[in-house]
């Protein structure tokens, strides 16, 4: 009643407008703020993870480089960290990583892009609706299964098909590389298909309007328009291939040879880490630090590749979205 009286009074006196109602929340909303803080904490955890990765790689690596000059590490051609006298030239295992990645990309780029062009430009919606999810499901095949397949199926098969190659021993860099290729095909196919599907219909229609064939539209219009997305998928797949462990551990072997041979057994960077860390090694020995030095190099290589891929994807999104 009092309030109504007050309004009546103000009307009566002609003072006009009632005092503006406060738009502030009735309470301090501390719960809201607490939840926001909690959520921000979750997000910050990812920064903590990265920092922890960098610290856990750097600290032992510094110890390592106190004993092994960085030049000897990067440019040495002998890798025998567990022998006496130990040799710490990283080139053989870096080269091995490059060789397996090379064979992997040689298989995966044509297969992946071919599959992507078919799915995006030729396949009927029904076919695409079945094949694309199948590829996505197959992208989840554990790499230890692919490694097993390479060692016990691909290796004998290739020896039967190509008996003139100098096969020796159960492991071969090339076979591991081909298996790595099998692993990354779904990545390239799926991401490239996404990139090509995002190319606006208008560009294709303009092409057909000018009398271009389907193949020309696919190769001269859609492919170049989606190129940055396609390259990004290849770069990401390269990063995966470089960091892949189980396939090369099973199928490429554990002998750090400085070689580019298809049939030779080699040890990649990841295989070295996996092999060495599995054994019982004492903390604080030079062998223990070696794991981290190689890990640091691996991390930097994949980091550069990932940054390139992220940049390319971003540029592609700016162009069409």
């Amino acid at each position, binding site marked *: 009643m009092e309030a109504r009286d007050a309004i009546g009074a103000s009307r009566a006196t002609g003072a006009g407008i009632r005092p503006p109602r406060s738009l502030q929340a009735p309470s301090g909303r501390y719960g809201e703020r607490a939840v926001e803080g909690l*959520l921000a904490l979750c997000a910050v955890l990812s920064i903590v993870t990265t920092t922890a990765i960098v610290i856990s790689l750097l600290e032992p690596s510094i110890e390592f480089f106190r004993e092994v000059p960085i030049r000897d590490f990067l440019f040495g051609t002998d890798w025998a960290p567990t022998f006496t006298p130990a040799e710490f030239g990283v080139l053989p295992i870096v080269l091995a990583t490059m060789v397996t990645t090379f064979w992997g990309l040689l298989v995966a780029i044509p297969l992946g892009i071919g599959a992507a062009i078919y799915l995006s430009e030729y396949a009927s919606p029904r076919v695409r609706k079945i094949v694309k999810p199948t590829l996505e499901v197959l992208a989840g095949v554990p790499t230890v299964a692919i490694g097993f397949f390479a060692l016990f199926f691909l290796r004998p098969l290739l020896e039967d098909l190509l008996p003139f190659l100098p096969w020796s021993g159960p492991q071969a860099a090339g076979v591991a590389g081909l298996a790595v290729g099998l692993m990354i095909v779904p990545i390239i196919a799926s991401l490239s298909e996404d990139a090509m599907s995002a190319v606006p219909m208008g560009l294709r229609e303009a092409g057909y309007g000018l009398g271009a064939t389907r193949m020309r539209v696919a190769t001269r219009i859609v492919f170049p328009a989606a190129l940055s997305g396609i390259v990004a998928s290849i770069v990401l797949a390269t990063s995966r291939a470089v960091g892949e462990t189980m396939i090369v551990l099973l199928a490429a072997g554990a002998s750090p040879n400085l070689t580019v041979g298809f049939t030779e057994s080699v040890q990649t960077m990841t295989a070295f880490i996996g092999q060495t860390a599995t054994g019982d090694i004492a903390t604080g020995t030079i062998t223990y630090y070696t794991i981290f030095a190689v890990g640091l190099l691996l991390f930097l290589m994949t980091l550069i590749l990932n940054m390139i891929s992220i940049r390319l994807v971003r540029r592609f999104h700016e162009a069409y979205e």
Partner: protein
Amino acid sequence: MAALGPRAERTRLAAAGARSATEAAMLSGQPLKDVIKGRVFLALLLAALGLALLGLAALVIDAVIDGRSMLSLDLLTNSASRISPETAGYANAIYGTILLIAGVLVMTVPIGVGSAIYLEEYADRTKWWNRAIELNVQNLAAVPSIVYGILGLAFIVRGPLDLGFILFAGSITLSLLVLPTVIIAAREAIRAVPPSIREGSFALGATRLQTVRRQILPAAIPGIATGVILAVSRAAGETAPLLLVGAATFVTFDPTVFGDNGYTALPVMIFNNAKQAQPEFHVLAAAGIVVMLVVILVMNSFAIWLRNRYEQKW
């Protein structure tokens, strides 16, 4: 002529060009050369797709053929054995994987969804630190799994957390590994909820938290579930980081979460068997692969079905 000007001249030329192009097309159709080129191209594309699918199908079929003599329920209930591969099974390893995955679920779902909500609903994207978090998550998603193993070894097993080689340390390592995947999937699911839903909720006086809880999360749940299942299936098949954080030991009993007498997981056991010299162990490894593939492929298929089924068009 000058009175007509350049515009009329251009129109006339365009009309003539169009007419001749149309006539040429009507008269000749598609040249045979182009037809053949198109067919060959299509055949190559189909070959590429076929080879990719064939390779992956061969992998599955080869595992079934190699492991068929061991495929029975005993495989799931028998303990591991170094001496008699014929009666060995994966009971302990499967149990270890279940415990590992339970830990991954408990840790990644709240943290992953929380991060995604923060980045999509709260973070001010003009601030550099929020952009840094985004970029960081994208980067973490592509860090090789073995590097997470190194992190686990240096930070969780030893170093600051100093848990020792226990199953829980493996669980944390796998959680950190798949967390970026969960965050990215959850963000995409949240982003797919149209702004009008948010605005409507705000207009009715809901607070931000109420909007998130009652509007956005329910709408985003299928997408988030897909991301979580894919992440879990990845964690279930991951071997390399576990080798570094202690799962490499040979275990013939059911592991516990905090027990320090060793643990193992299904993919690690498969790897150990594949490395043995006797061929009987390879059969055992192949049979284990079949078990692992069935579980993982079923999980992935379900996740992708879920996404396609509940993909809402707003």
